[in-house]
């Protein structure tokens, strides 16, 4: 049974989410602030965390950083802050998704499903994509450059790079990538791509020149260094 940690200072919201998840066979942990959440995670790491940003004692963004330093557990931020800057900051700090309050339970459940889907190890035949010094090992869920340096990608980053590698040398549109990596409900949310591709570029170092932005169309991952 998957365990979901809800970190939310508003008791009413916590209670509603708790009841809904329990009803759908999740094991639920509750924390009303960041420090209690850390206490709980130190005892047992949940499968997924739902984190509000405005929390007493230790804020949601700090909590995201804390988790990301220790685990690639999926994080969905649930926040009343709807501005783009806060969303990008949360995603930069390691959140996998961001839902703005108020949202319906169905939307939350769909997003949880999408995030958890990205966690699944693919069952395809192809288990390793080798691209002249750059390797995506699908089975091991790891990617390397110079054949040995581990890029240490998070689940979402890995899923995104894998999708680009599978279609190496072809253009993938924003919506194709969003649909395949995050799910069809994310079409149009291109800021996810900006954040995640930025992070992948940083980790790729000199290989980042292989990841090309085709303005107004999408992205392309070249299997060789461009001339």
């Amino acid at each position, binding site marked *: 049974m998957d365990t979901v940690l809800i970190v939310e200072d508003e008791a*009413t*919201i916590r209670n*509603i989410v708790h*009841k*809904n998840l329990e*009803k759908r066979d999740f094991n639920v942990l509750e924390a009303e602030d960041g420090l209690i959440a850390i206490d709980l995670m130190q005892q047992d790491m949940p499968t997924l965390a739902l984190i509000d940003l405005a929390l*007493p004692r230790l804020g949601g963004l700090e909590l995201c950083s804390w988790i990301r330093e220790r685990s690639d557990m999926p994080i969905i931020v649930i926040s*009343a802050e709807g501005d783009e800057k806060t969303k990008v900051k949360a995603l930069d700090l390691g959140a996998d998704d961001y839902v703005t*309050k*108020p949202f319906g339970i169905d939307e939350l459940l769909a997003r949880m499903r999408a995030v958890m889907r990205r966690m699944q190890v693919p069952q395809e035949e192809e288990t390793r994509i080798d691209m002249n010094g750059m390797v995506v090992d699908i089975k091991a869920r790891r990617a390397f450059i110079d054949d040995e340096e581990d890029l240490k990608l998070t689940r979402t980053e890995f899923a995104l790079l894998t999708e680009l590698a599978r279609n190496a040398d072809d253009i993938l549109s924003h919506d194709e990538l969003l649909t395949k990596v995050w799910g069809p409900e994310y079409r149009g949310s291109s800021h996810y791509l900006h954040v995640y591709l930025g992070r992948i570029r940083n980790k790729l170092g000199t290989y980042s020149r292989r990841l090309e932005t085709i303005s107004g169309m999408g992205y392309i991952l070249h299997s060789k260094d461009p001339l």
Partner: protein
Amino acid sequence: MSKKLRILLIEDNKDDAMLLIRELRKAGYEVDYARKQDAVGVNNALEEDRWDLVISDYAMPNFTGRDALDILKSKDIDLPFIIVSGTIGEETAVDAMRAGAHDFLIKRNLKRLGPVIERELREAQNRRESIEDKQELQRWEARFGKAFHASPIPTVIFAIDDGEVINANVRFQQMIDITMPEISGRKVQDLDIWISDEDAADFCETLIKQRQGIRDRETQLQTRTGLSDVLISTEMIDLDGKDCVLAMIYDITERKRSLDRIEKMQIVTAALSGARLPAQVGAVTVGQVANAVKASGAMVMLTDDEGDTLNIVDAFGYPAETIRRWRQTPLNGPDMPLCMTVAEGKALWIGSRDDDAYKPFADFLDANDTQHAAWVALPMTTDQGVIGGICLSYDEAQAFDEETRKYITSMGEYVGQAMERAILYEREQEARRVAEEANELKLKFLAMISHELRTPLMSIKGCTSTLLATDVTWSEEDQGQFISSIDHETDKLTDLVNQLLDGSRMQAGQLRIDPVEMSLMDSVRYAMAQLHNIIQKHLFIPDIPKDLPPVMGDAHRISQVLVNLIENATKYADPHTQITLQAREISLDEGQFIQVEVSDEGIGIKPEEEATIFEFFKQLNRPKGYRSGTGLGLTICKGIVEAHGGRIWVKRRDGPGTTIAFTLPLA
């Protein structure tokens, strides 16, 4: 080539005359002559014509060479006069020579005639030239004397051997305030003009011992007006055969001062143009400006917005205690020169403690500024009037001549213009800051409202979407709980909307209360009903005496104050800490009141924030993680309390936490 010769020949014998002429022509002269043999003829010839030479016989029937010589002398004509005679004796010849004849020849021996004429013509020429030279010299000396005395340049003549003053022109005498009789015979190196013995010795060493002229030597001399900058140039002259020095002294004090002042003005204007804020203009004034006008103390003061107090912007050269005492000076307070200058918009010049201008300020200056001896107070004037003033103080008494006054006044005007510009700049900056802060507050407020609205809306949306979900079924108890949550969250939304409306009414000055005689406990009970859930995690201690007298109040509004204050306490104090509600009767000058206090053990309020927390939208910068409120709660509390005739404030306390107190008048 033959030499032309005009001869007046005095001879009665025609043949002798012809003989003479021939002899002269033989000697190489081209002769032009007139022969006369009596006084009338000689007289007329001398008057009517010009001659190079007179040759005269000595003994003629009615006329003699001596007579002719007398006529020539009587006319003061210097012509060579040669006697050529056949009969004259030696004694007569000597007599004639004594009378002025230049030579004497015998008619039968005329061989010497040529050389004699030659010599006498040369001698005559020399004599003429000598006379002309003398006349020219006399004329020149007369002119020089006039020029010397009329010269606007102070000039002195002294002997090079020992420095004895021979003559000094009027300007020199005026320059050092001494008359010719006083100066005459004194040695130039002993005059009281040198700033030091070394300077005098150096000057005389160069001139007297080394006999070297001086060109434009720049030095300083003591003059009637004090120490003057001068250029000295000298020329060696011969005066009656005595080697002398003519020394001309150019007073360049004014020129130097003008140049120095122009240079300093440039420095000051450059520094002032770089000063953007009043404090920077103040710093330039007490620095570069004071230095440029050679003041040892400077102070810049500006009037306050009400125009009745002068505040120091910057000061230098006064004791710290004086600056502290003058920091804020009422314009109509002490007899301070600057106060009068600012009040009347007129500059004040106090050259010394003996100055009449000193008298009105004697008491003030004697008590406050004993270190200075002269003062200038200048107003800083703009189109809007006097905005302040500058005080400049001097260690020594000052003459403040017209030029100096103009110069210092110009400096004051520059400072005034710079200060006006700086004040406008500061105001503009302040207005911009206020506008930006207001904008930031507005944006923060909108973000806060968004957050405060979304949280209860989330609960409502969460509950409704849960109830509408078709993939699960809920027990009746669960459904009841969801609906109850919707109800509760709707109330929260309503409260929020009411707060916004109250805030808006307060801003418009339309917050209404309906006071009646009531007990504070009525409001407390009403508040507790709303706070029941909120205070669960804290240790809430109500401490209200049962025998409190009634107040005039609006029970609903007062409960709103209590709810706001206690809810704030729960937000900013950790769970399980103590929150106290106290009330007691107090006596104030304005009457009898009940003072209510809400205290917590939370993060407290910084002293610098105490003044602003009751302002609109002033959400405090709480540590991260503490939920801030709408920023309206305390403002509304203040509005309600003041509408009741009470007062609300942050009460200082020892230790952590916050106490907010407010008063309500008794019924």
